[in-house]
């Protein structure tokens, strides 16, 4: 399927800058290469302020890159209103806060039908189905069965898990090729979480739909993602398959994130102090160096890269699919002979 076109969605050197109130430029994204093959589940992970949500919005065309470009099926995104409408039919977003994203005065039916009407699929779709049939199909694909029973319900009559499923149904109704989900389960109960994640996997399997999931939850990535991109302060700092990144992490930041996942007992927790710095003041050299645990314990000094960490900027990680990390220490360790 993907043989002729390569990746479905691609980011090349994407940067997004905002001007802060003080007149400083804040680089929310500072050069990101990313590629999403058809039918793949990619997890973009990082803390608040890492730029992961800005990246998702940029991939969707809601933010226009200051530098670089986003390509869909190999062609740069066209930001005209008409082209965007066509694009959004094929790439849909599921937002973080299910309770807040549904209109409280709209029934479930209206919420799901809205997208169908906006995209003028309402009379009949390509398979000759009426609007009601399309809504019913989307709801049952999202695990809400029998769908007719929910048509006339309002959001306040639904549980948290049902609301999230209605949002997913709204996205599915347009038969997208890719769904971008921003923290799809973080506001849900533990018992419902697994159900929603299983739903995303099932949609990939049955409809061939790709999923880009933005999350701070590494357990979620382990549950469903094929590949992971770890973000820090506007850059991808490590990428690779889920197994590579989560079981053999290279970047000290990825290692720290993994060590604080509560259920991993055999790792000594490396709790980083402070939070992701202000994107208007990106540190010189490696952007992670002021918080880096490998510098704090002298590892970088012993490896002779400490000066590079402080002074030499790192290159943007290419989206080659290989397991790579943007880290001076890792560069030395991975090229040095073992032992």
């Amino acid at each position, binding site marked *: 399927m993907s043989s002729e076109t390569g990746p479905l969605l691609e980011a090349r050197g994407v940067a997004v800058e905002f001007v802060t109130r003080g007149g400083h430029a804040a680089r929310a994204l500072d050069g990101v290469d990313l590629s999403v093959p058809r039918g793949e589940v990619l997890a973009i992970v990082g*803390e*608040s302020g890492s730029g992961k949500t800005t990246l998702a919005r940029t991939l969707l065309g809601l933010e226009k890159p200051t530098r670089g470009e986003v390509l869909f099926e190999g062609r740069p995104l066209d930001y005209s209103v008409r082209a965007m409408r066509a694009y959004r039919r094929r790439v849909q977003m599921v937002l973080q806060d299910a309770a807040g994203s549904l209109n409280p005065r709209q029934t479930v039916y209206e919420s799901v039908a809205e997208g169908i009407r906006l995209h003028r699929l309402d009379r009949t779709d390509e398979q000759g189905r009426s609007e009601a049939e399309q809504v019913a199909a989307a709801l049952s694909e999202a695990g809400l069965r029998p769908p007719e029973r929910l048509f006339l319900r309002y959001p306040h009559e639904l*549980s*948290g*898990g049902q609301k999230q499923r209605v949002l997913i149904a709204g996205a599915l109704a347009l038969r997208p090729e890719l769904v971008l989900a921003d923290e799809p389960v973080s506001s849900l*109960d*533990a*018992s*419902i*979480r*697994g*159900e*929603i*994640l*299983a739903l995303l*996997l099932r949609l990939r399997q049955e409809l061939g739909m790709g999923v880009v999931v933005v999350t*701070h*939850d*590494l*357990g*979620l990535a*382990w*549950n*469903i993602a094929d590949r992971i991109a770890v973000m820090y302060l506007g850059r991808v700092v490590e990428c690779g398959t*889920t197994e590579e990144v*989560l*079981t053999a992490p290279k970047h000290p930041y990825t290692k*720290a*994130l*993994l060590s*604080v*996942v*509560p*259920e*991993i007992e055999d790792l000594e*927790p490396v*709790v*980083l*102090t402070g*939070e992701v710095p202000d994107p208007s003041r990106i540190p010189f050299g490696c952007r992670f160096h002021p918080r880096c645990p490998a510098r704090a314990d002298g590892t970088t000094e012993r490896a002779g890269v400490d000066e590079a960490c402080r002074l030499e900027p790192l290159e943007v990680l290419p989206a080659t699919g290989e397991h790579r990390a943007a880290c001076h220490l890792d560069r030395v360790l991975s090229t040095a002979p073992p032992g």
Partner: protein
Amino acid sequence: MSAVSEEVEPLLALRGVSVTYHTAEGPLPAVRGVDLTLAPGEVVGLAGESGCGKSTLVSTVLRLQPTGAEVDGEVLVLGQDVQTISWGKLRALRWAGASIVFQGALHSLNPVQRIGRQIAEPITLHEPELRPEQVQRRVDELLEQVGLSASRARSYPHQLSGGQKQRVMIAMALACRPQLIVADEPTTALDVMVQAQILDLLRDLVRDLDVGLLIISHDLSVLADVCDRVLVMYAGRIVEAGTAGEVFVEPLHPYTAALSGAFPRIGDPAARYAPAGLAGDPPDPRSLPEGCSFAPRCSRAVDRCTHAEPPLVEVHGRPVACIRAGES
């Protein structure tokens, strides 16, 4: 329950606590016969999903339940029966004896008031004899105790990150030097790294101040990480209790097992492409199923599970409410 709570007077003792809301559609039993004790220096976790009654239970600790809610059983805080003492004694107990960090507390800070003034408020109310500079000093100490610089007192809430706001809420809870702190979902909206920072802070405070801490969460992995003991609640009842390790690693109740499995062990091949979930929704407390209330969602349920509600009995040395818990 533990040997410690026999010798030392518990900070908190709930004995057969039930809470019923009287609604237009009939009585709603939100909490049904809960026993719980908490000793000084101890961290106890209460796990369960939305609607299981855990937040209602917490509200009874300082008699904050809505009017019209009927509370049965005994709620003892520092030996005083909270549900029957006078308003004057209750007022003294709130903040100074016990304080609660509520869920969604991040949004409950006043947006137009500086942080310092908000922390000072309970102090000036409870200790009106203090001079302004003494209050100021106490606020500075509290901010430092929760890992913020004293200069933060001049910030407004919007100038703080989520993690910093949560630290402010904890500073407020500590303001009147309570012996018991209840934290309802203290890390739910936070990032992994900030969550780890807040959990470290709570652990340090319990150790340094010898307070008792009750944490409520739907995330069993977080509770297992910080708590000494964990109780699991379903449909208003405790269904399992034990040490944090026992409950998380070797759950006996199928519901506990589902909560424990919801957060995969990273590196576990069995969890790859296999997120563990629990089908169905928790029951409506107004029309609980016959017998075990978990049976309709339980993969191990058999016919006799629907005959009677299983009592909380000792199985392998810890209380479990499941008639099949002892079977292998």
